[in-house]
């Protein structure tokens, strides 16, 4: 199953970033290398026809750029700085939903609310990789965005 969805994850991510965050990555790869520096993490579970979880790690400067682009304001503005974890939660929700819809458009799908948290550079990475998984990395000048999509056995 993960081999089928692996092709949809980067496509869904790029479409979401381009359409709603006005951001185009320089490089897209299957790398699972953790982004450098302080990070924002987001995770959510899904159930229905398919069960599993989605996770992302994003460099904090890149998260701020996404938030600024999402709201059409400066990165230092109150809107961008006050809502940037909320923006990353929306990003997780949209990429996961788009990838799963593309993977199986006739499925019944129930996405839980995303949970976001900050990760200091020295902190251990959360375990997004349990179970079968697809991963991709999108690199930007401000940092990188690492995505995981895992399916649970029913």
């Amino acid at each position, binding site marked *: 199953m993960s081999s089928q969805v692996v092709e949809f994850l980067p496509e869904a991510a790029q479409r979401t970033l381009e359409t709603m965050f006005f951001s185009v990555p320089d490089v897209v790869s299957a790398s699972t290398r953790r982004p450098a520096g302080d990070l924002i993490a987001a995770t959510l579970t899904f159930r229905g026809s398919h069960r599993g979880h989605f996770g992302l790690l994003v460099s904090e400067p890149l998260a701020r750029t996404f938030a600024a682009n999402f709201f059409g304001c400066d990165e230092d503005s109150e809107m961008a700085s006050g809502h940037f974890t909320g923006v990353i939660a929306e990003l997780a*929700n949209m990429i996961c939903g*788009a990838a799963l819809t593309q993977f199986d458009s006739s499925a*019944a*799908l129930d*996405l839980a609310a995303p949970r976001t948290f900050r990760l200091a550079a020295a902190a251990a990475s959360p375990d997004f990789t349990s179970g079968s998984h697809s991963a991709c990395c999108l690199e930007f000048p401000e940092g990188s965005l690492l995505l995981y999509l895992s399916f649970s056995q029913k």
Partner: protein
Amino acid sequence: MAFQILIVDDSETMREFIIRVIKLSGFDIGRCLQAADGRQALEVLRSSWVDIVLTDVNMPVMNGEELLECIAADQMLRTIPVLVVSTDATSHRVDRMMSLGAKGYVAKPFSPETLRHTMEQLLGVPQ
């Protein structure tokens, strides 16, 4: 003619984004009301003039399906077009929401042009 819009979403971030996108698209927006769930949306609809409702599906307290059922059951509200804006674009979900009375469905991610075009269609604005 400026249209009064109600945006229903439990995410303030997404409500603010949708307002931005509508403005960016050039849609003739008047007053833009907001609600964080279906129950709040019904309170707004019963106290304010609204031309079109944009609603999410998954929300606490009262979700998008329940909101559609309440609107369809209310003679005063059932003529207001409801557009679902959701991450879930599976045919299962789209069919379900349309069967409950939604007049349109826009899947995230969406472009400003897609949102504007769909809203204008539902409001009968000449394209």
